[in-house]
């Protein structure tokens, strides 16, 4: 009896490993193929044995991407847009999250409901009207006071960053986080004469490191991978982000698959790094948002 039970358990575990391995192959192989292909020459990628590893590692594609493709500029644009917009979003969202969790003011529930509602608005459908809004910003990009005559904030860094400056999701996460911290800490500080800002900055912010890390990672990732918005706002390669640069590189250098794979890897490199170092935090953030419903 005992024997057959343990055999059954061993069989079940074995079966689990088989199924899990098959699934893992589906998720892992595309990434491995991209890396291996990027280390071949363009010619051997297109005509050689696809399954064979390259005879010697060829890093030429990576330098070609920077020299031919202008990926240095794209990387700079992506970095500026992502870093600056993330800093602003984290500050704005944690402030608002604290306000919704710990301050009492009229209209709080309605405002918070509206924040949640913005989560349901489709950014891709809003890209066109946001484009028109940016086009007509007064006094920007040669515009008159009524917002016409020029290009407004199109083809500019502020224009590229606009949709990433705020996020209902970050506000939601921040509120949920601050609700978990005891209100008594703030009471004590208030009795000692702290105003609300000091309570937030000196008492709660130092306790909010996990939240700050999570919101930072999500905001950065979101700004980094966005495709549609920079595609319509940037008018030329000098303001292409890596995602847009990658797409135009692929269109220009069709069939140079080693170079294209190198470009695809470069375009995702920083978020791969975030992923490896920040996995713990990302997963916690996901669990916060969905797990508790």
């Amino acid at each position, binding site marked *: 009896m005992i024997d057959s039970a343990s055999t059954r358990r061993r069989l079940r*575990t074995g079966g689990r490993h088989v199924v*899990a391995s098959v*699934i893992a192959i589906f998720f*892992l192989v595309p*990434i491995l193929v*991209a890396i291996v*292909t990027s280390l071949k020459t363009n010619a051997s*990628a297109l005509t*050689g044995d*696809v*399954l064979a590893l390259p005879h010697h590692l060829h890093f030429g594609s990576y330098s070609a991407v920077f020299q031919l493709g202008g990926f240095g500029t794209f990387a700079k644009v992506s970095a500026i847009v992502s870093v600056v917009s993330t800093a602003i979003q984290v500050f704005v969202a944690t*402030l*608002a999250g604290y*306000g*919704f969790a710990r*301050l*009492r003011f009229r209209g*709080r529930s309605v*405002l*918070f409901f509206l924040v949640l*509602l913005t989560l*349901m608005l*489709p*950014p*891709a*459908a*809003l890209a*066109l*009207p946001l*484009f028109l*809004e940016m086009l007509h910003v007064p006094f920007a990009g040669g515009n008159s006071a009524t917002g016409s005559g020029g290009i407004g904030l199109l083809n500019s860094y502020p224009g590229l960053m*606009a949709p990433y400056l*705020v996020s209902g999701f970050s*506000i939601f996460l921040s509120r949920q986080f601050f*609700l978990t911290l005891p*209100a008594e800490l703030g*009471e004590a500080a*208030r009795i000692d004469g702290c105003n*609300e*800002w000091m309570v937030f900055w000196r008492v709660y912010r130092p306790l909010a490191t996990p939240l700050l890390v999570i919101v930072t990672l999500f905001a950065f990732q979101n700004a980094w*991978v966005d*495709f*549609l918005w920079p595609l319509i706002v940037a008018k030329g390669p000098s303001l292409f982000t890596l*995602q847009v640069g*990658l*797409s135009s590189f692929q269109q220009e250098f069709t069939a140079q698959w080693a170079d*294209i794979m190198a*470009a*695809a890897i470069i*375009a*995702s490199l920083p*978020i*791969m790094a*975030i*992923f*490896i170092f920040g996995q713990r935090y990302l*997963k916690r953030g*996901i*669990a916060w948002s*969905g797990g508790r419903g």
Partner: protein
Amino acid sequence: MAVGKARGASAPDSPGQARSVPAVPRTARRHVLRRREDSRLTAFGFVGPAMVLLALVYVVPTIIDGIYSITKYQLGGRAGFVGGANYAAVVHDSLFWQSAVNTVLFAVLTVGLGTLFALGAALLLSGTFVGKGIYRFIIYLPQSISFASGAVIWTWLYNSQNGPIDAVLERIGINGPAWLTDPHLALISIVLMSWWRDIGFYMVVLIAAVEGVPYPLIEAARVDGASRLRVLWNVTLPSIRPAMLFVVLTWGLGALQMFTQSYIMTDGGPVNSTYTIVLKIYTDAFQALHLGYAASEAFILLAVCMVIGFFAVRWFSRGLENP
């Protein structure tokens, strides 16, 4: 909560009333009033910046879109009022309808089956299973690849000239299909890529929910002699319903906005079989330059998402009241 109390205490009074009540000492009265104003200003200081930015990035564009959708605005031209003419034209635009059908089909396939796969993976990789960490890591790994990179990588995988998938199939004697150039297959190929990119994320959501099911509940059912399947159906699934709804909703709204894959992998082809709503909006607005017309298409998508979202948010915000 000092601020809250101060406001609560002074809430029924208007300043005029306060002046007519002599029983309240002058200094205390001023104190109460000052606190109340402070609190409103403070609240605006904390919540205001986010509200202003949300208005600029979400509310204003929504209004702008509504306005432009009833004009015949073309980039650089003047916006003339045309009433509902754009919407009437959209109804007769066969490419719009095909895009709508493609988009819904894509969303149903991706999210419907994808949620089941994500749930399966979550159940498989939770509980006591040695090595679950490494499998989770691998399944979640494509989250670290941008949509554009992923789309480019899969374009190569699907490539008909020496592309890895067909090359492997050929090795075992199968003539690989034309993944991205067969009109019956292209959308499915993009669904496959989207699963690869996104299942990991939703798996993590569901793992958190599955592992959050109180163990005594499962234990009790097991002791009562319920089979594993029964426990799954009668205990686990009902407990993770909120998380399931979150997954279907978030993923579904995302899928209705699919653009990057179609733009990079197929450009809407072959014979428009992968044209999506957002790709249609994009080409009408930025290639044909019919911005008014595109705005009306965008407004339709906006309205659909808002209706879905409104009910979902109402459902979610139950139980989110401040304690």
